[in-house]
């Protein structure tokens, strides 16, 4: 069986994928990324938000050799090729973890909690992982 790529009725909705978990430790981050990549084929208005430990998903210099997991972080660099260019990162989540935009793999928009809340309110579909 293969992935379907139908585009029902040509509807274009605003989809936001909210990434809240560290990249390793649980599978949520990896499987969330898989949704975003498959979803790209549906030509929806897609954005990704990274909050809480989810900001670690975008951290540079991930080395997973010791835990025998695939380092899937390079895939975030490929998102642009899927026309997924709206990446929002919660400023408070970066701050509390001692991270800055310079620590991240890809260009992002750093947004405050109220700004992120506003963006979320504008969405048609929010999938939170």
């Amino acid at each position, binding site marked *: 069986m293969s992935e379907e790529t139908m585009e029902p009725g040509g509807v274009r909705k605003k989809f936001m994928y909210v990434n809240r978990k560290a990249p390793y430790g649980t599978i949520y981050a990896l499987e969330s990324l898989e949704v975003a990549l498959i*979803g790209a084929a549906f030509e929806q208005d897609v954005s990704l938000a990274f909050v809480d430990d989810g900001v670690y998903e975008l951290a540079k210099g991930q080395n997973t050799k010791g835990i025998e997991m695939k380092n899937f972080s390079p895939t975030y660099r490929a998102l642009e090729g899927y026309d997924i260019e709206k990446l929002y990162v919660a400023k408070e989540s970066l701050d509390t973890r001692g991270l800055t935009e310079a620590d991240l793999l890809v260009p992002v928009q750093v947004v405050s909690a109220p700004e992120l809340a506003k963006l979320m309110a504008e969405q048609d579909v929010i999938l939170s992982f």
Partner: protein
Amino acid sequence: MKFSILVNEGPYTHQAADTAYQFTKTALEKGHEIFRVFFYHDGVHNGTRLTVPPQDERNIVKRWSELAEKYKLDMVVCIAAAQRRGVMDASESKRHGFNADNIAPGFRISGLGQLIEAGIQADRIITFGD
């Protein structure tokens, strides 16, 4: 209203699997439409027929199957998540060279595109999970 349901957690471990069922059942009883129930992450384990809970406990898998039959529910198990976790239908099992399958009645295995479509088609998509 037309809902889609996303179930992200496995049965018996996490309340989300129960709450998703209870929400879906109640919505249907109240005359709402469920466009699709999509099982992802460990949620795919809700769709294995090889569960045998103690007799004095609820049977989560059977409960879903019965609901699907009664309301002609579309219940989709994500193929990628299912392959990782050993949930197979007959054709997937054969394709991978196994001699058994374990998908429960009323569930079907399909791609993540079905989740995106569920989001597009429904008025609301509701996630049950952590």
